[in-house]
C-alpha cells in the first residue's frame, strides 16, 4: 500500500462550494478552538456551481414575504411533496445570510429605500461575477484548513457512525484519510447522468456544473445513508444552445414565453394548468406540448425590449453564463448586417439530481443531520427542500454547522478501521493499477445513452415506462464489469474514473426511485407514460431509499408532515382543485 496522508480534525466539510465555504466560516466563528478542514476537489476560489458567477439570488424574502409564504409557494410548485420543517428553517435564515455575504464584498444594488432590487418574487439582482472568489477567500481567511485538490471518494465509518472521509489527490493520486468528529457533505448534485443537450466537443456546454458528479450522493449511498426523491429530476428550461438561465430575460426584462406563432402560449393554451402562474415543471411541459401541437419552437419574447436594456442583459450574462453573452452578440452582429435577429429560443436541458432546485438528495432532519450518525448534509446534495438555490445553501450550511459544533465539542475521535482503509485504498486507486480497456469517457457515454433512452432523457421527451426502466436497470447492473475495467494513467484520469463510478451509483438509486412512484406528479421531471395521472391517495408521500451492504436498494416510504397551512395544489388533469391541509 503506497503512503497514506493522515489528518485529524473536529469538523470536516466535504466540498468547498457555496455551502462549504459558508460552513467553514460559520464553524470558525462559532468555535475558533475547533480544527475545521475543507476537502475540495478543485480550488475554492472558483470551484462548484458558482464558478462563472451568478446575476441573482433566487431565494430571498422581500418585504411582505415570510417563511410561511415562501413555504406555501414551494408546496404548490412541488405539488405537495415538501419537507415543511426544512423549508421554514431555511427560509428564516435567508436574508441574514445574504446580508452576511454582502458584508464580505458581494455587490448588491439597492433601491432608493436601501432594499435589494427585486428581480422576481423570491429573487434579487446581484453583481455576482466574483461571488465564488469572495466566498473562497473568506473561507481561507477564517482559519479553516483548505485541502484543495483532494477528490473525496468515501466516508469512513466506525460502529455505524461516520468518523471521517477518504479522498484522492487530483495531482498526485495519493490517498488522504481524514478523521473527524463531525462531517458535513456539501458536494452538490449530479450532472452528466443523462446525454446532454449539446453534442461532442460542446457536451459540457450545459447549465449545471459538469464537475458536479454526484460524488457526495454516491458516498452516502454506499455508506447506507437514506436518500429522498431522486425521481424528482430537475430539468432546467433554458436558452437553447447556450443552455443559460432564462431569469435575466424572463424576470428582469419581463419577456413572456411565446410560441412560433407569437402567442403567449402559457395563458392561451394552458390556462387549465394555471396559465403563466403554473408550476416550474409545467412551464417546461407546456413548451414541449407546443412543439407536439406544431406550434414550436418556443421563445422568450424580446421583440419589444429596448436595445439598451438588452445590452445590459449581455453584461449580466457575462457575470454568469458567458456563452450566452457571446451568442447574443453574434445574433446582434447578424442583425447589424441586415439579417434577422433570432429571438431567444428556449428548451429543456438534461435531467439532473439536484436538491437546490429540486427535491432530491440526502434525507435529513431539521438540524440537517443525515440518517447515518456523524454526518450532515447541506445545499444541492440535501433533499426535501426545493428552491433553496445559493442563498438557501448558505442557510442550510449555517444550520448544520450549529449542531455540528456542539457535537464536535463533546466527542473523541474514533479509530480508523484498518481493513476499511486498505479496502478504500485498493478501490480508489485500482484504475491506475493495470492497463484496462475502458476509458472513463467510454463508460460515461454508455451511462448517458442508457438513461437517455430508457429512463426518460431529452431524446424521449423525458417520458418513460416501467418496461423501459427495467431495461435501464438491467444495463446499469451489467456495467459492473466495465466499472472494474476502468483505466487511468494520470491522476486527472483517475478523478474522471471516480466521476463515472459515482454517476453509475447515483443512476442505480435514481432508477429504483423512478420505478417506485407509479403516478405522474411532476410533468417532465417525473413523467410515467404508463401512469400518466397524479395519484394523491397513494403517492402524497416521499419515496426514499437505502442501499444495503450487498448493494441491494430498499425503498422506504415517508409521510408528508404538513405544518398548519392550507395550500391550493395545482389542478388535476380533470380540472378539479385539490386543497391540501393536514
Amino acid at each position, binding site marked *: 500500500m503506497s503512503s497514506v496522508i493522515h489528518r485529524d480534525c473536529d469538523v470536516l466539510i466535504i466540498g468547498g462550494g457555496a455551502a462549504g465555504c459558508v460552513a467553514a466560516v460559520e464553524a470558525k466563528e462559532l468555535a475558533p478552538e475547533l480544527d475545521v478542514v475543507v476537502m475540495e476537489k478543485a480550488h475554492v476560489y472558483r470551484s462548484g456551481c458558482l464558478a462563472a458567477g451568478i446575476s441573482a439570488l433566487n431565494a430571498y424574502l422581500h418585504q411582505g414575504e415570510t417563511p410561511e409564504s415562501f413555504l406555501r409557494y414551494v408546496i404548490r410548485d412541488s405539488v405537495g411533496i415538501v419537507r415543511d420543517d426544512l423549508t421554514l428553517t431555511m427560509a428564516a435564515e435567508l436574508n441574514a445570510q445574504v446580508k452576511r455575504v454582502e458584508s464580505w464584498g458581494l455587490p448588491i444594488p439597492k433601491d432608493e429605500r436601501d432594499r435589494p432590487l427585486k428581480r422576481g418574487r423570491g429573487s434579487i439582482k446581484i453583481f455576482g461575477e466574483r461571488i465564488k472568489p469572495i466566498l473562497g477567500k473568506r473561507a481561507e481567511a477564517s482559519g479553516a484548513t483548505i485541502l484543495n485538490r483532494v477528490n473525496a471518494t468515501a466516508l469512513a465509518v466506525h460502529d455505524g457512525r461516520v468518523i471521517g472521509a477518504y479522498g484522492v489527490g487530483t495531482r498526485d493520486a495519493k490517498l488522504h484519510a481524514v478523521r473527524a468528529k463531525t462531517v458535513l457533505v456539501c458536494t452538490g448534485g449530479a450532472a452528466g447522468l443523462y446525454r446532454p443537450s449539446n453534442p461532442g466537443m460542446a457536451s459540457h456546454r450545459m447549465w449545471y456544473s459538469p464537475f458536479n458528479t454526484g460524488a457526495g450522493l454516491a458516498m452516502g449511498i454506499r455508506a447506507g445513508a437514506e436518500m429522498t426523491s431522486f425521481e424528482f429530476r430537475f430539468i432546467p428550461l433554458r436558452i437553447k444552445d447556450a443552455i443559460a438561465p432564462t431569469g435575466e430575460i424572463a424576470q428582469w426584462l419581463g419577456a413572456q414565453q411565446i410560441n412560433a406563432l407569437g402567442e403567449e402560449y402559457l395563458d392561451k393554451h394552458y390556462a387549465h394548468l394555471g396559465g403563466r402562474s403554473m408550476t416550474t415543471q409545467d412551464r417546461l411541459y407546456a413548451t414541449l406540448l407546443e412543439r407536439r401541437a406544431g406550434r414550436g419552437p418556443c421563445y422568450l419574447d424580446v421583440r419589444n425590449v429596448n436595445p439598451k436594456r438588452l445590452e*445590459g442583459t449581455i453584461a449580466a450574462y457575462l457575470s454568469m453564463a458567458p456563452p450566452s453573452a457571446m451568442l447574443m452578440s453574434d445574433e446582434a452582429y447578424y442583425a447589424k448586417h441586415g439579417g434577422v435577429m433570432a429571438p431567444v429560443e428556449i428548451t429543456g436541458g438534461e435531467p439532473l439530481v439536484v436538491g437546490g432546485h429540486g427535491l432530491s438528495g440526502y434525507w435529513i432532519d431539521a438540524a440537517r443531520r443525515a440518517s447515518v450518525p456523524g454526518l450532515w448534509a447541506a445545499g444541492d446534495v440535501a433533499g426535501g427542500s426545493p428552491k433553496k438555490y445559493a442563498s438557501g445553501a448558505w442557510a442550510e450550511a449555517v444550520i448544520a454547522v450549529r449542531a455540528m459544533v456542539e457535537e464536535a465539542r463533546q466527542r473523541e475521535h474514533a479509530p480508523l478501521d484498518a481493513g476499511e482503509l486498505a479496502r478504500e485504498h485498493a478501490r480508489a486507486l485500482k484504475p491506475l493499477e493495470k492497463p484496462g480497456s475502458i476509458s472513463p469517457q467510454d463508460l460515461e457515454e454508455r451511462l448517458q445513452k442508457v438513461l437517455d433512452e430508457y429512463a426518460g432523457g431529452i431524446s424521449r421527451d423525458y417520458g418513460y415506462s416501467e418496461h423501459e426502466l427495467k431495461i435501464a436497470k438491467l444495463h446499469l447492473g451489467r456495467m459492473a464489469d466495465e466499472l472494474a475495467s476502468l483505466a487511468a494513467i494520470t491522476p486527472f484520469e483517475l478523478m474522471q474514473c471516480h466521476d463515472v463510478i459515482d454517476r453509475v451509483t447515483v443512476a442505480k438509486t435514481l432508477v429504483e426511485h423512478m420505478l417506485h412512484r407509479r403516478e405522474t406528479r411532476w410533468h417532465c421531471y417525473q413523467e410515467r407514460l404508463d401512469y400518466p395521472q397524479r395519484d394523491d391517495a397513494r403517492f402524497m408521500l416521499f419515496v426514499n431509499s437505502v442501499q444495503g451492504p450487498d448493494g441491494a436498494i430498499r425503498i422506504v416510504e415517508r409521510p408528508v408532515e404538513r405544518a398548519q397551512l392550507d395550500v391550493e395544489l395545482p389542478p388535476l388533469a380533470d380540472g378539479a382543485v385539490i386543497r391540501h391541509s393536514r
Partner: protein
Amino acid sequence: MGIFVDENLCNRCGTADEPMCVRDCPGDLMFIKENQKAAIVGNRECWDCAACVKVCPTQAIHMQLPTSVVVRGVELRGRAMKHKTVWRIRLRDGDEKGYETPSTGKPPFTPSL
C-alpha cells in the same frame, strides 16, 4: 469548449507556484506543458465559465464557442480588476464590444442594468 492560450503572451505567471489559470479552473483542467506554457487537457471538458480568461494577468487566454453551437468564432476576452471585470467580445467581422461588470464592493455601481 473552450479556451485558447496565446503562447506568445503566457509567461506561466512568472515565478508563482501555480499559474492563476491552473489554480482557478473549476474542473482542474489546466496544466503547464513542458515548454512552460499553460494548456487545457481538452476543450471537450471545458464548461466555458471563463474563470481562466478573467484571471490571466497577461490576457493570454480567450474563449470561443464550440463549432456545433456557433459556426464561426466569436471570441471573449476579459480581465478581473480590483472592483470590476472588463470584457471584450470580438465579433466575426473583427469589431469589438466592451463591457464592464461590478465585481466587489458597495454601491453606487455603474453598470448598464
